[in-house]
């Protein structure tokens, strides 16, 4: 399993060095970073699914790209989830972002399974759903300062 580039930082965070974000602005900045990374991950997986549905790439290639996307998303969600919100006013933001990341994570897990089962119908549906959740995450990121 390949460690993502910011895995060392995530490990430090997960090891207990967790601190609340300094202020609301910093917390929103974290949220935007997590959402933008997740948008990229979801869209690339959707591209790979489309390519596999149209038989443009091999099973091994699609499996590798989708699995990498899934593995990349887990630490994005984890590193955002462990940061304490600075106040109650950003609790709704935390909930929304975590819900979106969780939804993307579930879709990517389903996508990995669909690819390995060579379930073309499911791959097509999941590509659409991944694009939708990516758009939602992008819109959410754009609403933040």
């Amino acid at each position, binding site marked *: 399993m*390949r460690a993502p580039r910011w895995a060392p930082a995530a490990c430090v965070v997960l090891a207990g060095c967790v601190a609340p974000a300094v202020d609301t602005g910093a917390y929103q900045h974290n949220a935007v970073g997590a959402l933008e990374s997740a948008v990229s991950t979801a869209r*690339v997986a959707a591209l790979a699914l489309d*390519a596999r549905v149209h038989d443009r790439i091999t099973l*091994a290639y699609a499996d590798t790209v989708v699995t990498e996307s899934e593995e990349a998303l887990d630490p994005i969600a984890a590193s955002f989830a462990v940061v304490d919100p600075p106040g109650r006013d950003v609790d709704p933001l935390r909930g929304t972002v975590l819900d979106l990341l969780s939804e993307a994570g579930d879709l990517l897990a389903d996508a990995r399974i669909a690819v390995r089962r060579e379930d073309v119908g499911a791959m097509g549906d999941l590509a659409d759903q991944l694009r939708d959740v990516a758009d939602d995450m992008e819109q959410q990121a754009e609403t933040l300062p």
Partner: protein
Amino acid sequence: MKKFFAIALGILTAIGGFVDIGDLVANGLVGARFGMSLAWVVLVGIVGICVFAEMSGRVAAVSGRATFDLIRERLGPRVGLLNLAASMAVTLLTYTAEIGGVALALELATSVNPYLWIPVVGAAVWLVLWRVRFSVLENAFGLAGLALIVFAVALWQLGPDWSALWESASRPSLPDGESRAVYFYYAIALFGAAMTPYEVFFFSSGGVEEGWTAKDLGTMRANVFIGFPLGGLLSLAIAATAAVTFFPQSIEVDTLGQLGLPVGLALGKLGIAFLLLGFFAATFGAACETGLSVGYSIAQYFGWQWGKFVEPLRAARFHTVVLLSTIVGVGVLLTTVDPIMLTEYSIVFSAVALPLTYFPILVVANDRTYMGDHANGRLANTLGTIYLFIVGVAAVAAIPLMVLTRAGQ
């Protein structure tokens, strides 16, 4: 006719061998994130590598000795050691990244975890370096690396808006949401990828391996001045496919699999087959070049017998260094470090080490004791001096920008 084929083969292998894991990662990443707005850096890098590769090739052809051999003699053991330490550290890091790159290419072909491939790749690279003749190694992987031309074909097939691409390349601007610091951090990374130190060491040592003399200067220059720029065009094609496919969708390229997706979308499975062959050949060939470069550098500095032009047992210490470097590279990768992240760091640290690599070459290429009538002329010295200034600026700025931007985050 024989000479024509020799020149053609040299040019083709120079094109195919130009791109390595650093070029793949840097161009894909930059294309996806900045469109073609950093294309100018690739052009600056190509001219730079041509200037210094020609100098180091000329030194090898005229003196019959490789770069490190002369640097220690000309500049003394202390400066030579500084040069050796900086270049070696970067080349070993690059060697490790290349081995990781081969494993990632094999993962794409098989979906077998790359960490299972790493020891196999390490053993295969070492076996090739031990057993396979230099010319076979250079020509086979150089020619197979031409499969990466599939990126250029894919770009054409994707049907981009050529005028928009040209506009983005010819009038560079900051994309929305990107800071100047991040832009210049990636500019330095791209520059470091194009001018990686091992390329000149391998080129000059390869010249000695192949027994170049002053009569081969024409062939050498054809390789450099035709092959390298065409290899650079390949780099631009990689960046352009990423720019066309990923930039509009805000997708960042972090893996080889993502980088190759546009080829699959444009050309289907046949394109993927060429892509995988190209990835494998480019990374395996570069792993061989960097592995040899580590051995060349150390053996030449200490004055040991080196090279593949002698029986391995007559260059035992050289081959021992290559073996130990391979073990270190494989060991580092098996800590589960991400090869792509390693590549990103290796190209930035390449930029830091550039002055220590290129300044001594400029000095040696000007020394008429070694070079006689073939010492640097006015043009070579002017370009060399300009580039020393550029690499100096890049070297000084690289680490502060890395810290400031949190490695381009």
